[in-house]
């Protein structure tokens, strides 16, 4: 069976990325799967807290600075059988501005982890580091909430991912002059991506086809968190549909996780939510979500888009 890297990301802080990551990890571990969670939130790591653990060493920073020989060695056992965790680094200033070669090393080591399931809990924003971690995931899961700010940032995040994918392919095929053209055009309006591809297809069909295929290979999933009514659930479907039509990406809506007060109370008690509330609607939604992906033929059969990062 292939390794699955679940990259949980999103454009806005506080949407529940770490909550989704922690619950997903605990759910997979409860099915006797081998899971390694990596707290790749370089600016504000707190996945350990959501798992009811204390910060400590070894952590991601120890691996990146060479104090620990491999990422495998930085993955510590948790009280949950089958679940290991690479804690986020406390040395935030160093790690938030991760140099390029260290990022490549980390991405390589993530692929080499001896486990079937890796869950990456990513930080907020559209820094190259975050985007590259998100793009390395299969599946990449975007977590949003039904608020205008979250929706706006979700689109921004997706646009940044798209531009990053296209930039990586442009660099790989040495078509660098297109990059500025893309930046100029994509900022204009909602139809800009279409316009960019249309004009590219007219001027250079071969490159247009390569880039369009690269774009279609980027297939993120969407989770709407903290939904309170049916309208919020439908909003997720609408967002995925709009992304398909305007951003030209094949986005899959995984479903909604209903708002639950117990999430807050579990967090205050420094206890993970999932094992204690397995019958709650939010926990059921997490299970359904992971099963949807695990048994989805399109995701099982497809190979993840191989994105080669430039060495410079």
């Amino acid at each position, binding site marked *: 069976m292939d390794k699955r890297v679940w990259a949980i990301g999103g454009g806005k802080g506080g949407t529940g990325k770490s909550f989704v990551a922690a619950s997903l990890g605990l759910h997979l571990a409860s099915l006797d799967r081998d899971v390694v969670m990596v707290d790749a939130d370089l600016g504000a790591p707190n996945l350990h807290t959501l798992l009811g653990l204390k910060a400590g060493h070894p952590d991601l920073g120890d691996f990146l600075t060479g104090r620990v020989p491999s990422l495998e060695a930085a993955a510590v056992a948790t009280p949950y059988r089958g679940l290991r965790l690479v804690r986020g680094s406390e040395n935030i200033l160093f790690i938030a501005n991760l140099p390029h070669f260290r990022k490549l090393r980390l991405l390589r080591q993530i692929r080499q982890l001896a486990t079937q399931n890796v869950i990456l809990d990513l930080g907020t924003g559209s820094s190259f580091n975050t985007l590259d971690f998100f793009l390395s995931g299969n599946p990449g899961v975007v977590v949003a909430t*039904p*608020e*205008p700010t979250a*929706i*706006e940032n979700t*689109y*921004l995040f997706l646009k940044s991912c798209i531009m990053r994918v296209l930039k990586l392919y442009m660099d790989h095929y040495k078509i660098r002059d297109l990059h500025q053209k893309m930046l100029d055009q994509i900022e204009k*309006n*909602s*139809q800009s991506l*279409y316009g960019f*591809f*249309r004009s590219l*297809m007219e001027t250079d069909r071969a490159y247009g086809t390569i880039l*369009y295929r690269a774009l279609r290979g980027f297939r993120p999933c969407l989770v709407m968190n903290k939904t309170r009514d049916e*309208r919020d659930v*439908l*909003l997720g*479907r*609408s*967002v995925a*549909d*709009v992304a*398909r*039509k*305007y951003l*030209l990406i094949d986005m899959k809506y995984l479903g909604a996780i209903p708002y639950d007060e117990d999430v807050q109370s579990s967090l205050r008690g420094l206890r993970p939510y999932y094992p204690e509330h397995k019958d709650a609607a939010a926990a059921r939604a997490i299970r359904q979500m992971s099963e949807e992906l695990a048994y989805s033929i399109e995701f099982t059969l497809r190979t993840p888009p191989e994105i080669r990062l430039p060495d410079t």
Partner: protein
Amino acid sequence: MLKKIEDWNYYELLSVERTASPDEIWEGYQAAMATYQDGSLALYGLVSEAERELVLGRVQEAFQTLRDQDLRREYDLTLLRHAPYFPPKAAFRKSVGRLEIEEAPPRPTLRARIKRLFVRNP
């Protein structure tokens, strides 16, 4: 498929299959109305007001057409007319110089072919 909003067909607008049942079309219409209604959150920060109104008008047009069996059939035919032409891959019958799918006359029997050699207007 690389398409502009104006080029989306009614099925794509409602995000349903071409073989969708009336219930599925109704469901697709409801979802599309929720997406493109005034003040919709789903478009926030991405789609302009003018564009939203344009698509909303087309969504309503799509539903009016697809809910009616006759109009839908007619619309399906126009879609077929716009579809790219694929040459038929039927067997070519050398004896009559025509494709099998065309109404080729039956192959003349040996007796008829011999007769044709001697009789000018059979």
